């Protein structure tokens, strides 16, 4: 008896695999990548009846051919890692197609348990599956369940423990007939393999023979390494290929698929009872509207726009909290650390940089939530379906839409999970083209810059402007794709044979997990690469420093201004020395603060101060506030002088800052770029901001 074992979860996309995985493992999951590829590998752990079970979530696939990266990954895992058991999640409402994968597991012979999921949905559509009969015909245990409501999970685990805990590790391939001609050739090839050096106890020989006949790339490539046996097998394959083509006008592969489905039809005929479909299929009804040729695209735009409004509306308050938090953090550190490079690096470099990106976490979270909703409900597949014709024109694939939307096609995504989503594209050229144009989208790292530009120029229509910017991003991305695909990445288009899954109400748990996974990827980027870039940018914006002479000259300038102010006849009587000036500055500051906070006691207190009449006069001049109090002319004159003095001081501060920035590396780059960007009206400071944004962006992918 084994006390510890590994099981692999497999199944068609949309069969509820993720739901089952989450139901089994709960929060104890780890996400990694399969070695060498960007396919996610989720591993969870569970203890059941004293058995420690490691659960590996294989990518969702329809088949075990070498058609897509996912399928290869799933297959390699099964063969190389040899899990103790495979749990195949099968959608009872779509049994035929789901069993196609199960049949292939039977061909492979790996220990198998079928989780017959969504029996409730099937029943509501008049499909009754006799799971005992199914189990008998397939010769594997079948556990009926409804993963969404946690029904059957316990029974499934019981069965898993019973089968895998039994310690029987033998693989027992099922004998399926593919017609006389093919069966006979299979036996021949199997015999050759068994006797030759190709033989590998890891691979069932019969399965390998089958793959040879199917022309499976991975297995055929392997044969080429063994010339002697390889050639023999190749001859048989050629012979049978010609024979089948002559007699049946089809490739062996097609005949094999036909027979698999024939085998399945034989099973479902006995194990499935159909009532006459009484209920109208709701999903079809919804599709009549949502993918309607005329209003479908309009509804799609409306939904995307609604997602914007929702995200901005919902995230407004939490974004403000985050910003306040980072501001506060900066303030605390400024007061704890002494002024100097370290303080400047942490506050202006790290906190402003990383905080600027992390501040948008709530916004990105809501965006990912909306995207997860689109995916889990089944709408995303419809978007791909409706846009495939358009994307194809630009050399992309309907499924590219997912990657584009996640990385910012709906503003505020992140290119990291976007690139991950591009992995579902089978063709390397389409995949690379998609990955290359993904950075054009409005990802979360670009948002801070857009937010600044929009607030500056179009503060009245924030959501609308962002929508327009997003449309522009799409246009850029698509045309870039067109150029890439018609030059460096020329190549044929891949098939768009895709399931439109029935509409489903997503579970909150599933949505939260999806949202969190992607948000976490965003946060990780902020914590690593953006941190590094912030530090580099800080260095670029700090060094080289201006000379001490320049600093001194600004200091001298300030002194001259202060002296001239205190010496002017209007002021002389009221502010006798510099101390009085400092008092006045402080008084104004505290008065403004008290006014803002509507702190009446402080206001009354401050109004009693001897210098207060000056404050009131300055207030009157600045705001044109006709106060009830009479203000003497002498006060007004002094206040006017004071306002002038203040603006002179601010101007000096600003020119000092500018001189500092201009001298640095970043300032130098910004000025160089000015010649290019001048027609756009960007000066070197805007350029610095943009360059910084692009640096963050580029690293982001």
């Amino acid at each position, binding site marked *: 008896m084994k006390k510890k074992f590994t099981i692999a979860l497999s199944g068609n996309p949309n069969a509820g695999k993720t739901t089952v995985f989450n139901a089994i493992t709960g929060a104890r999951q780890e996400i990694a990548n399969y070695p060498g590829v960007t396919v996610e590998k989720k591993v969870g752990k569970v203890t059941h009846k004293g058995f420690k079970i490691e659960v590996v979530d294989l990518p969702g696939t*329809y*088949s075990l*051919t070498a*058609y897509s990266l996912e399928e290869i990954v799933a297959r390699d895992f099964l063969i190389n890692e040899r899990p103790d058991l495979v749990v195949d999640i099968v959608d009872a*409402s*779509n*049994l*035929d*197609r789901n069993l*196609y994968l199960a049949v292939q597991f039977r061909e492979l012979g790996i220990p198998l348990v079928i989780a017959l999921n969504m029996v409730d949905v099937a029943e509501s*559509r008049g*499909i009754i599956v006799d799971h005992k009969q199914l189990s008998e015909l397939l010769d594997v245990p079948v556990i009926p369940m409804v993963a969404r409501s946690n029904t059957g999970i316990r029974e499934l685990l019981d069965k898993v423990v019973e089968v895998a805990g039994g310690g029987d590790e033998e693989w027992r391939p099922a004998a399926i007939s593919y017609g006389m001609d093919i069966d006979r050739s299979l036996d021949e090839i199997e015999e050759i393999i068994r006797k030759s050096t190709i033989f590998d106890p890891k691979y069932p020989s019969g399965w390998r023979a089958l793959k040879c006949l199917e022309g499976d790339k991975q297995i055929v490539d392997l044969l080429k390494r063994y010339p002697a046996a390889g050639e023999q097998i190749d001859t048989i394959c050629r012979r049978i290929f010609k024979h089948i083509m002559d007699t049946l*006008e*089809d*490739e062996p*592969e*097609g005949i094999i*698929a*036909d027979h698999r*489905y024939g085998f399945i039809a034989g099973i479902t005929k006995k194990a499935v009872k159909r009532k006459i479909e009484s209920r109208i299929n709701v*999903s*079809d009804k919804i*599709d*009549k509207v949502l*993918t309607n*040729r*005329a209003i*479908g*695209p309009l509804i799609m735009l409306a939904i995307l726009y609604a997602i914007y409004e929702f995200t901005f509306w919902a995230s407004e308050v939490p974004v403000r909290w985050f910003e306040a938090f980072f501001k506060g953090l900066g303030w605390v550190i400024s007061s704890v650390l002494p002024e100097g490079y370290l303080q400047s690096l942490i506050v202006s470099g790290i906190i402003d940089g990383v905080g600027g990106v992390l501040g948008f976490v709530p916004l990105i979270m809501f965006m990912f939530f909306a995207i997860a909703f689109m995916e889990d409900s089944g709408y995303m597949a419809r978007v791909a*379906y*409706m846009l*495939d*014709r*358009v994307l*194809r024109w630009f050399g992309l694939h*309907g499924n590219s839409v997912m990657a584009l939307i996640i990385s910012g096609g709906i503003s505020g995504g992140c290119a990291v999970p976007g690139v991950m989503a591009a992995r579902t594209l*089978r063709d390397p050229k389409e995949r690379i083209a998609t990955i290359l144009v993904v950075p054009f989208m409005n990802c979360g790292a670009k948002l801070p810059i857009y937010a600044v530009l929009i607030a500056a120029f179009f503060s009245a229509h924030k959501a609308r402007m962002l929508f327009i910017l997003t449309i522009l991003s799409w246009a850029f991305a698509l045309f870039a794709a067109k150029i890439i695909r018609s030059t460096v990445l020329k190549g044929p288009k*891949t*098939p*768009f*044979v*895709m*399931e*439109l*899954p*029935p509409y489903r109400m997503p579970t909150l748990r599933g949505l939260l997990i999806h949202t969190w996974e992607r948000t976490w990827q965003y946060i990780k980027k902020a914590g690593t690469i953006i941190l590094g870039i912030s530090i580099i940018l800080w260095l670029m914006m700090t060094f080289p420093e201006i000379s001490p002479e320049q600093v001194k000259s600004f200091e001298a300038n300030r002194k001259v201004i202060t002296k001239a102010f205190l010496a002017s006849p209007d002021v002389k009587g009221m502010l006798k020395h510099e101390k009085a000036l400092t008092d006045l500055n402080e008084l104004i500051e505290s008065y403004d603060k008290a006014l803002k906070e509507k702190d009446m006691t402080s206001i009354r207190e401050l109004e009693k101060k001897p210098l207060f009449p000056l404050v009131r006069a300055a207030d009157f001049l600045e705001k044109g506030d006709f106060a009830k109090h009479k203000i003497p002319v002498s006060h007004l004159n002094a206040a006017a002088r004071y306002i002038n003095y203040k603006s002179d001081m601010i101007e000096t501060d600003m020119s000092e800052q500018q001189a500092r920035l201009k001298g640095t590396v970043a300032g130098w780059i910004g000025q160089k770029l000015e010649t290019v960007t001048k027609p756009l009206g960007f000066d070197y400071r805007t350029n610095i901001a943009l360059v910084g944004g692009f640096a963050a962006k580029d690293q982001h992918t």
Partner: protein
Amino acid sequence: MSDNQKGIIRKVSGTGDMGRRIREMGLVKETPIQIQGRAPLKDPVAVKIRDYVLTLRNNEANSILVEVDVPEQD
């Protein structure tokens, strides 16, 4: 075929990756099929097959020969 028209697949002539993909999704000989609708630009097409909805591009659908309006048999 027009919208909502039904038929039975008589032959699948696609080869290579595309042929494999079409077949593994359940488009094999003697399978009943129904046109569900078309995308806004009339391509791809959505079909109902084996209790689910599948989309494929028009040129991919060209490799599937369907006999339309076969009288239902039990």
